[in-house]
């Protein structure tokens, strides 16, 4: 008789959430979940995976990437020149074809994440007006569980509520908007700056205390108030912040001020590498690393978390809800430029770029990312990301792992970058090497915990059976780019890089409670300014594929 159990037998298990550091263990799975071993010793598993001499970890969790929605799709449209020469994703009897380049097509994205042992990914910047688009693309992005952050840092209703000093109204609106989009947490991108971009030529804000014209608020107020509202709604994840002045020399002061503004509120600062620069205002000649100064602050403040936004050398496509940044980059790189402003909500900028190791700025960006990993004391609060595809592709994660675990490899690469990196950052002095246990934290257990996903990032009973099995190898790039087996929701979806069972994956969303009377208030404002009807805005639950609500504690 079928027991329904799958057993992963005798693997070397890493489960930092339970303090398990490379111990030989069995893992039992039933109905998509990790379970206690059956009490009856007569019960035999339906299938046993022999994991002897193999490394077993929870599935990877990418908490900050750009993989779906209008911005990503526009970038796909804009980069045909990359696809023709890129790796071909062929159709098979069970999988769809696709294209690669820095912005892969949807099916290819799902297969490639899964093929690399990642089973969950969050898109970091979605204008809620386009939420339906994202849900459609996510259904065509197989293998992984997905969710997205909802852009709010330049939302008119948000700014108006802050200006009126009505925190209750702000909190209810945020809850309503997350529910309407079926999103996961508020995302703040260049707070106030994108609105000014819409108002003025080359418009932007340059500091936390500048006035956002027409709305009478400051970036500081937006950060502070939204972070506060998120905590009082008890959302599983904190507010997710792309701070002002991304990429600008000297921006570390803005970043530090943003951290201080959060006070005791939780806050996640995304792609922190791009926000850790010293130097004179807009003066590239004085560009240097201020990672150490910021790391020190984050180490001392447990309410703060970061993902790195590592830069890798090569061609990629930058894409951001930070409209003025897109304009800046397209001018700097003399590249083609896409920009799209979303009414009431957000902006968007896309520009192809190439990071070169001969460039001082790019080399420093590369080094500053590594400094963040290597200087931070608590790996639970520093998450691996490339801000895919902004710093590089998510497919570079195995290489980043090697850079962190293998000092010799890192030092070899350091020899090839711009020599001034040694003077302007501390990377050359850092001898730390990550352990597999620490890698497990920064690639799955940490991000799962930061996102508030109780069923992800660990291997205890009740966890989703999202598991990656690796063949140990001294070459960590090789080890992590081609897992022996990937299990998603208890189903073997990948074996040695080949897709076996392309599941659709779940959609993770939150549904915080709010006072329904706010809807009258919102609808009056909405009908006045939006170009679609209020009733047609919210995405209903039956629109989603495989939805799973993540509860607000």
């Amino acid at each position, binding site marked *: 008789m079928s027991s329904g159990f799958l057993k992963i037998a005798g693997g070397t298990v890493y489960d930092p959430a339970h303090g398990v550091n490379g111990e030989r263990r069995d893992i039992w799975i039933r109905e998509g979940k990790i379970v206690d071993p059956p009490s009856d010793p007569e019960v035999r598993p339906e299938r046993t995976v022999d994991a002897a001499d193999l490394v077993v970890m929870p599935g990877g969790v990418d908490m900050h990437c750009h993989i779906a929605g209008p911005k990503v799709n*526009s970038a*796909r*449209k*804009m*980069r*045909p*020149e990359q*696809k*023709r020469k890129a790796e*071909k994703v*062929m*159709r098979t*009897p*069970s999988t*769809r*074809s*696709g*294209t690669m*380049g820095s912005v*892969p*097509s*949807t099916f290819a994205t799902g297969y490639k994440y899964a093929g690399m042992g990642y089973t969950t990914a969050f898109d970091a910047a979605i204008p809620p*007006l*386009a939420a*339906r*688009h994202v849900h*459609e*693309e996510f*259904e*065509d992005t197989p293998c992984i569980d997905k969710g997205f952050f909802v852009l709010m840092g330049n939302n*008119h209703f948000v700014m108006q509520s802050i200006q009126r000093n009505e925190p209750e109204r702000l909190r209810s609106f945020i809850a309503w908007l997350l529910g309407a989009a079926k999103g996961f947490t508020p995302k703040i991108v260049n707070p106030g700056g994108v609105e000014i*971009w*819409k*108002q003025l*030529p*080359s418009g932007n804000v340059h500091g936390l205390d500048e006035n956002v014209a*027409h709305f009478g608020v400051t970036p500081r107020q937006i950060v502070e108030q939204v972070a506060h509202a998120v905590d009082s709604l008890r959302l599983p994840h904190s507010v997710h912040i792309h701070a002002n002045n991304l990429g600008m020399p000297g921006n570390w002061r803005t970043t530090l001020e943003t951290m201080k503004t959060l006070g005791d509120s939780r806050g996640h600062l995304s792609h922190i590498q791009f926000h850790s620069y010293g130097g004179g205002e807009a003066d590239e000649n004085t560009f240097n690393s201020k990672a150490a100064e910021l790391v020190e602050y984050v180490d001392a403040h447990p309410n703060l978390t970061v993902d790195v936004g590592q830069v890798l050398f090569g061609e990629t496509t930058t894409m951001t809800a930070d409209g003025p940044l897109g*304009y800046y980059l*397209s001018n700097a790189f003399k590249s083609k*430029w*896409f*920009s*799209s*402003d*979303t*009414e*009431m909500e957000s902006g968007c900028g896309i520009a192809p770029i190439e990071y070169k190791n001969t460039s001082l700025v790019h080399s420093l960006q590369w080094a500053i990312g590594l400094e963040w990993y290597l200087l931070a004391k608590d790996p639970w609060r520093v998450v691996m990301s490339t801000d895919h595809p902004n710093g590089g592709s998510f497919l570079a994660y195995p290489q980043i792992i090697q850079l962190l675990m293998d000092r010799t490899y890192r030092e070899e690469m350091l020899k090839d970058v711009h020599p001034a990196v040694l003077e302007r950052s501390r990377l050359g002095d850092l001898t730390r090497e990550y352990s597999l246990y620490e890698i497990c934290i920064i690639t799955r257990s940490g991000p799962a915990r930061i996102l508030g996903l109780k069923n992800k990032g660990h291997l205890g009973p009740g966890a989703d059976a999202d598991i990656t099995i690796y063949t140990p190898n001294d070459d960590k790039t090789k080890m992590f780019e081609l897992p022996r087996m990937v299990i998603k929701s208890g189903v073997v979806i990948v074996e040695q890089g080949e897709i*076996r*069972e*392309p*599941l*659709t994956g779940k959609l993770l969303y939150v549904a915080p409670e709010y006072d329904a009377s706010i809807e009258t208030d919102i609808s009056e404002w909405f009908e006045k*300014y939006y*170009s*679609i*009807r209020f*009733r*047609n805005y919210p995405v*209903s639950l039956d629109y989603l*594929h495989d939805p799973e609500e993540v509860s607000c504690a």
Partner: protein
Amino acid sequence: MSTPAANTPPHRAGVRGGDPGPVDSSATVIEDSTCTFCGCVCDDIDITVKDNHITEAKRACVLGKAWFFNHHADDRPSCLIEGRPATVAEGVERAARILTDAKYPIIYGLSDTTSEAQRVAVGIGDTIGGTVDTTTSVCHGPSGMAFQGVGEVTCTLGEVANRGDLIIFWGGNPAESHPRHFTKYSLMPKGMFVPNGRKDRTAVGVDVRKTKTAKAMDLFFQIKPRSDFEALWTLRALAKGIEVDAQQVKNDTGIELARWQDLMDRMKAAKFGVILFGMGLTMTRGKHLNSEALLSLARDMNAFTRFVVKPMRGHGNVTGADNVVTWQTGYPFGVNMSRGYPRFNPGEYTSSDTLARGEADAALLVACDPMANFSQPARERLQAIPYIALDPKDTPTTRAATVAFTTATYGINVPGTVYRMDDVPIVLRPAFPSSHPSDFDVLSAIQRRVTELKK
């Protein structure tokens, strides 16, 4: 093992729409229903339904009213094989055989159906190693190519309504093709930064003829036919302060340089300029080079003020077709998957060309009428090869089809998603059910069958 097709349960199409509202046996009013006739995709139509007939369509324009009122449940059979009535299942079987037996099958149309159906259609193309193309290739395809070349600076239509103070209509006639565009988005709305509506805006028309749109403009530039490219480059030069030859400009464009200079001064003085362009630009001499010149001009203007540009898309969900084909394959139209992965080459893989050259040997045509509007060589080829057509109406294309499915009409009978011309996704609230299957249903059945046959 599950197949890609099996990952999309067919019942989902039935639940995807908005709530159709309370049912009343006498007359039902569906508020905030969506008109899919043109790229405006107005979602504020209150339609009244009585006995499966739409009796009122509040706020709809003349085209929208025609769309809703002329909709009658077609009493043709849901499937005809070689002109003879057949069951849908028989039609699906024949269709799947045609597509899997072919060496160079093409899939074309897709711009007047739901995104849910478009997604399945591209999936069929993948399974059979076919060539997928949409009506984009014969309307704004050149704009898509220009987009690939230089990008695009754009916005959603609500931004135009709230901020736009200088609106330029180039090579289009929205007064007749998109009748509510002026009132709903581009000219009349009282927006956040243009509180007096039309009074706060300057409207400029550029076209080769004085259409009804020209009458609604403050300034009109009647340029010489086939001189859009020269006119746009004149403006680009003036934007950057580059000296141009006044006589040559007059000769080339038919407009005095001083008038172009005046327009450029206004463009620079505007706070939020908008250029909306039509097929007068994309389908005349220069094609994608015209579009590229216009996209570049809008980009250039951002050195002086804020400026955006937007193609005026025609069909209700042609923008959805671009999006779906792009997210699944990486390319917006003209995609060949015969080698097992997507390749893009307009002119080579676009349907009017694969047909006219006699390469395509079978076709799946969804919501389009190439028998009425393709070139003669393309039509002759279609006539000669087996093909399948899906359309709610009887058309020259369905009449000559080997297998013709009469399908339910999206937005009126079928729920789902469409993308407005500015990429905003909008939900459909169907008025009443149809006795015919939806495009999604028929295509899903074909997808399941071709997947089996290809194993």
